[in-house]
């Protein structure tokens, strides 16, 4: 059975006829060819697929595209400024070496963008708690934690 879905992705309206079971992440990766959103598991545990839906971080592997009907979706491709300048959270990951292989990174950044809105100056512990649903096998989290602390402060305009 195919269904019509339409939503906004990175500010652009998109629509498609999809099989009803199509996951949001499959729609983003395969249909829109926005391959920055990754798939690292099949049990909704790694967070590599995290996107913002109406401003909230969600795992795009855990809902079907239909559930995002009418929603505003932001993926990693839509985070930097139109001129290519990195968003402060992205810049903080670069400055703090918060990524190695880069595979978990889009999910980490998207999750951090949501978290930072309510945590302008987070503690180490708050950041670690916020990463409960995001796995990284490369960095030992040390520099991801530092990146998110710095990025959140930068977003809040703090030094």
């Amino acid at each position: 059975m195919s269904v019509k879905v339409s939503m906004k992705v990175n500010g652009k309206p998109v629509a498609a006829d999809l099989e009803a079971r199509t996951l949001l992440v499959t729609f983003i990766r395969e249909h829109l060819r926005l391959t920055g959103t990754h798939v690292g598991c099949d049990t909704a545990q790694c967070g590599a697929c995290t996107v913002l839906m109406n401003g909230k971080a969600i795992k795009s592997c855990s809902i079907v595209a239909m559930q995002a009907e009418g929603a505003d979706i932001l993926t990693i491709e839509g985070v930097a400024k139109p001129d290519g300048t990195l968003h402060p959270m992205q810049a903080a990951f670069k400055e703090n070496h918060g990524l190695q292989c880069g595979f978990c990174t889009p999910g980490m950044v998207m999750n951090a963008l949501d978290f930072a809105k309510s945590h302008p100056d987070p503690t180490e512990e708050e950041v670690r708690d916020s990463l409960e649903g995001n796995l990284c096998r490369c960095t030992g989290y040390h520099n991801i934690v530092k990146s998110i602390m710095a990025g959140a402060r930068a977003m809040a305009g703090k030094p």
Partner: protein
Amino acid sequence: MTAPLIGARVQRKEDYRFLTGAGMYTDDVALPGQAYAAFVRSPHAHARIKKIALDQAKKSPAVLAVYTGADLAAAKVGGLPCGWLITDVNGQPMKEPPYPPLAQGKVRHVGERVAVVIAESLAQARDAAELIEVDYEVLPAVVDPVKAKGAPAIHEAAPDNACYVWALGDKAAVDGAFAKAAHVTKLDFVNNRLIPNAIEPRAANATYSRAEAGYTLYVASQNPHVERLLMTAFVLGLPENKVRVVAPDVGGGFGSKIYLYPEDVVVTWAAKQLNRPVKWTAERTESFVSDAHGRDHVTTAELALDRDGKFLALRVRTTANLGAYLSTFASCIPTILYATLLAGQYTTPLIYCEVTAVFTNTTPVDAYRGAGRPEATYVVERLVETAAREMKLDPAGIRRKNFIRQFPYQTPVALCYDTGNYEATLDAVMKMADVAGFKQRKEESLTKGKLRGLGYACYIEACGIAPSNVAGSLGARAGLFEAGEIRVHPTGTVTVFTGSHSHGQGHETTFAQVVADRLGLPIENVDIVHGDTSKVLFGMGTYGSRSIAVGGTAIVKALDKIVAKGRKIAAHLLEAAEADIEYDRGVFKVAGTDKQKTFGEVAFAAYVPHNYPLDKLEPGLNENAFYDPANFTFPAGSYVCEVEVDRDTGATQIVAFTAVDDFGKIINPMIVEGQVHGGLAQGIGQALTEGCRYDSTGQLVTGSFSDYAIPRAGDVPLFKLDTRETPCTHNPLGVKGCGEAGAIGAPAAVMNAITDALGVKDLPMPATAQTVWRSMHKAA
């Protein structure tokens, strides 16, 4: 002249693409006419295949083909080869049973591939795969390596399930030393099986071009040239020049992406049959059962000491689980990369190690971050710490008493350490970790109901793998050199091609630092290309912390040739004798004068050779080099872990982890720290959270992230790091490698800390809250 780049905390060149979603991993590659593969896998650990019913699947919508082992056999597709031949104690070669890409008549582990379905879409391939019915006759399975020898045979070629029994050292002399020892410390332990779990699942996408009569395979691999060599020469029998292997951005490897896997072979073969690109990407559940696992040793180890705590001899017996088939480098891990490291940082004069490697009905086991060296370090450092406790000696003191201090040092287990300074890292770590203040911290913890413990690990590893002739004499079936090429463009910018492969290590930055520094260029003017057999001249790839020591040296050798040719060109331009030209970071100068030419001017002259010694010198500036290392490198370091154990729950918290490493010269400290952080987290994972479990029928009980706990952010602390530097003596950069250290040293440090907190002799890994709680209640 530009500021020095070697040793600088340069931010990574690769980050922008990863941070903006512009990375290109294998699953991101979509080819015109893309078809998709889904594998049918065995649900049984050991079974005979009686019948495979394919009709329903073949009739399923949009299915292009269904293949089984019979199809591959008919097409004369060979089995997967093993890259290292181990010779048994009785002089016989190890047993090498066939490893067919799709099962032939029998399955030997859960997750083994039985059939593949290729369809227009992934969903259609998976739907059809579910329609395949396989009739199995289930056979008894064995998962415990210690029970393998008496169990029903898994392979005809190995009736007692033993692949080999291998030994190193002088057994009689070791036994003699034990007979005379004042004290013997003995431990029996299991080095727990680990599942690598790079966050990018394995993937392969192959295409065939009739026009070129050639294949292209995109694959998540740490060593595309090795993948190509093994696949063309041993499995598919294809001309190597007709196969291009591309390992694009790869999302972590940790060893698990070194090997040639059956799925890679099947999609490549199928691409030609169907004349369509065929893509397969593992689901995480498939990764758990089909990526090569790591470790899985059962060991009895004994250390003989004299009255003062001087080590006299070490005796180790290990049973190593190889799983159901011999993975690409499986055979050398529990032997060549394990027993040879048992001297550790110590002068132990006599060492004997015997390894029985067995087949079981489990996923194949191969190198995983550290590969043999974490297992060896665990043996040595748990024994040393336990001996100190038993003899009431200070654990740091007993180590100092036995440190190697004279270099080069020939160990009794074949390696020759070129340099090191173990006292320096131990001194530094003890200061940084404030070992002196531990007693007080322990008392404070007690008032909160917590047991505090402190543990050391002083590790050594052999990296920079490896001198090819030495490796060859030990059974390697390949060379272990590395290749590099420097292509200088007419305007003086540079593209570097390296056979090393970056899958998180940041080579695009560190290698560029080396080249830009030497040529006096801004780092933006140097690009690194890797991971494509059609671009890079050759490569043995990245594993064993070999990239900077071997791959980096190949680049330096090529740079030497560039500078040597540049000197000739500059001499001509400056009308001076070649011998009078001095070179320093981008400037060719006539000695004792201010006459000079920049690197850019020389490069331009090489490509616009109007004023150029054409009678003596070819135009152009492009050099390549192959480097075969003279020896291994020997990174070493000292770690101190401090834990608090909750008396009520048994939960262990790492409250401090301090690591001081000696990696020789460091190119980029920021990247090195990142490598150590990641290694430490994996080592802590082995010690605290990662317990791979099979039930007695061979079902993997820990087959998802909910059952198999790789560390989460809350499981690890902020790490305290520092380095000491004794440069490697036999490569020009003085580098040793840093990728595996953390995973090698951490497990012993953590377990030494927990056993200290609990006051027990030993505890199995992973020391989960349950394991610790049980131990506390048994002790009480």
